[in-house]
Every structure is written in C-alpha cells, then in structure tokens.
C-alpha cells in the first residue's frame, strides 16, 4: 500500500511545492472546463438586448424565444430572454440594477415601472406612444409620470367575477346589483355539505388580494389619498365606506371555502373549473383554465363586474402589465427593437398567446382582423364584449391601488408590497380588530411610508 521505493528527492520542500502547484493547476483546469470561462472573453461586437420577462406562461415564453430568433435573423442583434418567477420580480430587477447589469427591456407591471422611473432607470416612451396615438389607449391605460410615459401597456388584466350562469339559471338568480342582492345570491349558491361554495375570494397577503379583492373597495368609493397626498382613508367621508366594505367582506367570507386567508391564486383558478365554487375572482386566464381542464364549462360560464353597495356604478380592478425600456448602454438598439416589435404586429401575436387573458388596452386591437379571427376569441366573443364594456367609464369604475392620489407615484408600489389592504382583511377576519380599528391601523401605516410625490 505505501510506496517506500521512491527516491528521497521527492520529499524535499522543493518538490512538495511543485506537487501542490501541479495539483492546484490540475484542479483549476478541471473546474474551469466544467464551468465555462467568464463571459467577458466571449464579448461580442453586436449589442445583446436583455429582456426581463415575468410572464411564465409557456406559450408566451415560446413566442418570445421565437421572436428573438426572428429578430436576430432580420436585424442581426442578439436578444436574450430571461424569465423570472413572478414573485421574484422586484428582487431580481433591483439587484440587477444595483449590480450594474440592468435589463434593456422589461416585461412586468405598472407601479414597479413608476418606481424605477423615479430612480431614473427607464427610458421615456412618450415618443413611441404618441406615434401610436394616445387616444387609441383605453381609459386609464396610460400612466403619466413626470410628464412622460414609461411603460407601454399590453394587458388591462381586469379582475372581475366569473360565475356559473347555468347554476344561476337553475336557481332563478339574476346578476346582483347591490350588496344585499349579492349576499342573497351567495346564500342561495352556498352548499358546504356538498363541498360547493358560492365564491372564491382571496384575503391573505400578496398580489392576489391586492388585485383580486379590492374591487368592492372601489365600488364603495374608497380612496386612499387626496390630491396633495394626504391620507384620507380614515377621514369622516371615507372611513365609513371602508368599514362598510370590511363588514360586508366578513359576511361574504362565510360563503367561501374554509380558510379564506389561505386562498391562493391557484385556488381562485382551480375552484371554478372543478366545480367547487359558483363564482370566482379572476381574469381571462380562468377561461383558459376551463378550456384546458374542463371544457364542458366553456358555455356555462359568464362574467360580471363587482356591484356597488347600493346599486350604481360597478367596479373592476385594473392590473396592468406592460413593457419598459431600461436606461442602459443598449437603449438605442432596444428602441429599434421595440419599434420593430410594434410595426410587425408582434404585439398582437404576443397578446394572442394567452388570448383571453391579455386584454388589449388599445381600441385598434379590437378592430384588428388578426386578433378578432383567433379561434378562442371567436368562441368566447360574448365574454369579450362584456370585457370591452368594462372600458365604458359611464357604467364601470376601473379602480386600482395605482389610481390613488393625483398621479403615478412610487407610493402605489409601497401600498402593494406592504400589504396594508390584506392586513386589514386579516385583522377583521381573525377578529383581532374591529373594522374601525383596522382602518385606523392601515391609515397610520400608509402615512408612515407615503412620500409627497
């Protein structure tokens, strides 16, 4: 086992050092070959446009990859798509900027764009949007900040209620027009013994509640700020409305599956298509889920907006997504890319990857032949018409956290990530606070992080 025959020379310090060095070199070489050399050695001359994408739908991702190949062939520039799980969007974006590796083109949601714009990380899109025509965009789709536009919206993402019109018909129910009627409908549809519930609604911390369960607040006329960024949530005019909404939601939560605070986006999607709940809060993606998992429901569902407390204007929640161009060394090349994207109608193709979910915010899209003739759009045209109707501001209020206060502001992102609204719901549902106390606590927290801009 041990080798004693080797010459004494092997044991001199000289050779030991040599041995170590050889080992080190061999090890290093192995590691390097296994891991690849740093990218700088392969630096290319042509710009690489890096796209940050937080849409995880496989069809969308596939489309983006093909688009990258096409652009390379046509314009010679490399486009690199990096898909990130939705929940990690903020972390990845801010980290990359901090590290000096910002993305050139970003696919994400609006209030984050305002935050980035405030830090000077985005290139203004005013020119491009004006070329398309500001009037082509539906109500509240464009958000002006510091006198310019920073995000090009591709998706209204209205949150509305889907309901089983066949069950409504069976029980002789009509679309409720105020909150009393709504509770009546819930009572009639709720059958816990048979594991059937009236409604699936989210209440816990997260974007699903901030987007999926704030419409009742908007319908009740709740506002967070006045035009000077003063918090008015607990003012004599607004506070009773919030309290009324919280009391109403507490009652409604009894008609949802057990564990309302645990309801996730998954539950909101799946519960409707597998017959667990008669209504659910969601958007077009739920229709795709029906088509994928339970196609027989395709003609048994319908959609409605959220009713107001006493009749009157109904509400939907706006949950926009859009494109931004980062302020990087590649901004010019990226602008060229985006112009190509728009002029070759690839925006339409993109929106068609999840056709019923990416609800176009531009009037012209609805008239576009390519878009209209998509089979799914055709099949669900009734639903599309209702969706288009939501853009009629006489009938429907498009509400959102993003619309609080006089203009676009980083405050909106803060309301989202601090989860003040879900926290109010949790306090009330867990009976830790009365609705009035919950409102006070929320107002206090909002005051702490609001900046006057």
């Amino acid at each position, binding site marked *: *086992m041990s080798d004693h025959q080797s010459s004494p020379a092997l044991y001199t310090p000289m050779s030991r050092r040599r041995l170590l060095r050889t080992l080190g070199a061999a090890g290093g070489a192995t590691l390097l070959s296994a891991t690849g050399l*740093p990218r700088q050695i392969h630096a290319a001359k042509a710009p690489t446009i890096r796209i940050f994408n937080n849409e995880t739908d496989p069809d969308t991702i596939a489309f983006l990859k093909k688009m990258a190949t096409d652009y390379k062939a046509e314009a010679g520039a490399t486009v690199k798509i990096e898909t990130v799980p939705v*929940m990690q969007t903020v972390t990845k974006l801010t980290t990359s900027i901090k590290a*000096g590796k910002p993305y050139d083109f970003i696919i994400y949601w609006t209030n984050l764009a305002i935050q980035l714009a405030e830090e000077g990380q985005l290139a203004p899109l005013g020119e491009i949007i004006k070329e398309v025509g500001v009037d082509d965009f539906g109500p509240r789709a464009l958000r002006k900040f510091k006198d310019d536009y920073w995000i090009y919206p591709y998706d209204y993402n209205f949150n509305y209620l889907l309901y089983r019109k066949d069950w409504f018909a069976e029980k002789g129910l009509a679309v409720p027009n105020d909150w009393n009627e709504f509770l009546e409908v819930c009572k009639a549809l709720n059958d816990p013994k048979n594991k059937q519930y009236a409604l699936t609604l989210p209440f816990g911390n997260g974007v699903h509640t901030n987007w999926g369960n704030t419409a009742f607040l908007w319908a009740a006329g709740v506002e967070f700020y006045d035009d000077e960024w003063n918090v008015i949530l607990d003012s004599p005019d607004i506070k009773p409305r919030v309290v009324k909404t919280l009391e109403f939601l507490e009652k409604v939560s009894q008609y949802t599956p057990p564990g309302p605070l645990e309801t996730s986006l998954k539950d909101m999607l799946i519960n409707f298509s597998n017959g667990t709940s008669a209504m659910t809060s969601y958007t077009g993606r739920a229709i795709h*889920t029906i088509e994928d998992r339970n196609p027989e429901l395709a003609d048994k569902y319908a959609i409605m907006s959220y009713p107001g407390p006493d009749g009157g204007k109904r509400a939907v929640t706006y949950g926009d997504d859009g494109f931004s161009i980062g302020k990087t060394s590649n901004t010019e090349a990226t602008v060229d890319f985006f112009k190509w994207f728009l002029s070759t109608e690839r925006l339409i193709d993109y929106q068609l990857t999840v056709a019923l979910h990416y609800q176009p915010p531009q009037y012209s899209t609805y008239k576009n032949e390519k878009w209209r003739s998509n089979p799914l759009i055709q099949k669900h045209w009734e639903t599309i018409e209702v969706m288009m109707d939501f853009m009629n501001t006489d009938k429907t209020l498009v509400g959102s956290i993003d619309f609080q206060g006089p203009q676009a502001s980083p405050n909106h992102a803060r309301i989202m990530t601090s989860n003040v609204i879900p926290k109010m719901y949790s306090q009330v549902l867990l009976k830790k606070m009365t609705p009035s106390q919950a409102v006070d606590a929320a107002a206090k927290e909002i005051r702490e992080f609001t900046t006057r801009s």
Partner: protein
Amino acid sequence: MNPTIWTWLRRGILGILIVGVTIYSLFPMYWMVISGIREERWLFDPLLFPGPYSWQSVKTILSLTDFPTYYLNSIITAVATTILTLVVVTPMAYALVRSRLPGMMLMVRAMLFAYMFPALLLAIPVYIFLVKIGLDDTRLSLILTHSTFTMPLGVWLMWGFFKNFPFEVEESAFIDGCSRIKAIYRIIMPLTLPGMLTVVLFLFILSWSDFVFSLILITSDELKTLPYGLASIDDAYDANWGELMAGSTMICMPLLLLFAFLSKYFIRGLSMGAVKS
C-alpha cells in the same frame, strides 16, 4: 411477570415502535410520489393507497419547464461543489488536528457565521461583486458560493474523523519516510473512506438544495438549477398540486438514490466517530 410474556410484550412494543417510526418518517414521501402520478380527480378526493394512475402531472411539468436542463445543472454544480469543498476542507481539517498554528480555532468558529446571516442578504453583495469581475451568471460563481456554505459543515465533519485517527499509524508512516501529504492521501483517506462518503452526501445535499444563490446569481435559463425551477412552477398559474408533487419527486430522486446507495457506508461512517465534542 413470566419472562416469556415479558419478552413477547417487549417484542410487541418494539414492533409497534418500528412501524410507527417507519410511517412517521416515510409516509410523507410516499404521499408525494403517489400524488404526482395520481389522476387529477382523485387528488381532491384522496385515497390512502395508490389508486388510478396518470402520468399527466409529470407530462405537464415537463412541458412547463426545462427539467432536463435543470437536472443537469444541479448535478454538475453539486458534484463540483462537493469536490471543491472536499479538496479545500480535507487539508484544512488535517491542519487543525495536527498542527499548532495559532488563530485556527478562531477561523473555524468564524466560519460558523456563514449560518448566522440570512442568505438572501449575503447573496446580493456577492452578486454585485461578481458582476464587477465578470463572473456572474456562470456555474463557477454558483460553485464558489455553494462551497462557502458547505465548508463549515465539511470542516466540522472531517475534523471529527481526523481527530479520531490514531496518530500511531501516521507516525509509523513518517518513520518509514513518508511525507505528510502522502500520508494523508495514501493512508488516512482510504481508511476514513466510509466516513468521507458521509461527508460527500451531506455536502451534495446542501448544494443540491440551494435556492437563494441560484435565484440571485443566475439569470440564463440554461444555467438554472432544480429548486429555482420548482419555484418557477409554483408561480406559474397552470401548475397544480399534482404537478408540484411530480416536480418535487423528480428533485428528490437523485438524492434518495444516492442515499440508498451510500447508506451502508453512511451508517458505518457515523459510528466511526463523526461526533465527538
């Protein structure tokens, strides 16, 4: 009490305990595996025993993500990390045991700090630094960072092994003219091999499970690792419990296989004195 009755009673209690521990330890894994291959209807109306099979969840998961790529990346990273850590840690542990250099204990204790700071807060400055030297988004960066948090455990375990290695064996080798390094590689390591396999397993698991560093340091799809891949699925709206369970099963497979294969050495290795305080 009649000794025979006592023996039977003892056997009975032992039997119950054995079954109890088995169920307690293994049932959740069993549940994960069959949930991944169960037909969707029966997911929500569960049966205890395997019921109707369906590969649908597995198929969906494979179509939603690039599992083969993630697998490959995780394997390469974990293997490279394990090798690198072993190479770095073995001499370190040896030096700790045999030499009398001052400040060593301090440094070892300092390495425990790796476990005391939230990984996410550490990953960000590391990423910034890596970008500066152009090494971000590379497998090498992942391997290096993984090695940082596998090192403390590796040092601790190897130290235990070396400490219990009788010096006489080494001494006789020195008398025969063997150098220190030769002694390590020719004599000590082969003898502590079962124990080392233990260390290999632990290090491999640590690297395989990492999520935070993969998230922050890696941006290219081709370099993503499995836990990151699974998290992407959870966020994807189309994934359901069946798919999550199928994905989880696939992540565990290599670990469980490695473990099953090595468990013989593992158990033996531990009783060789990994734990001395």
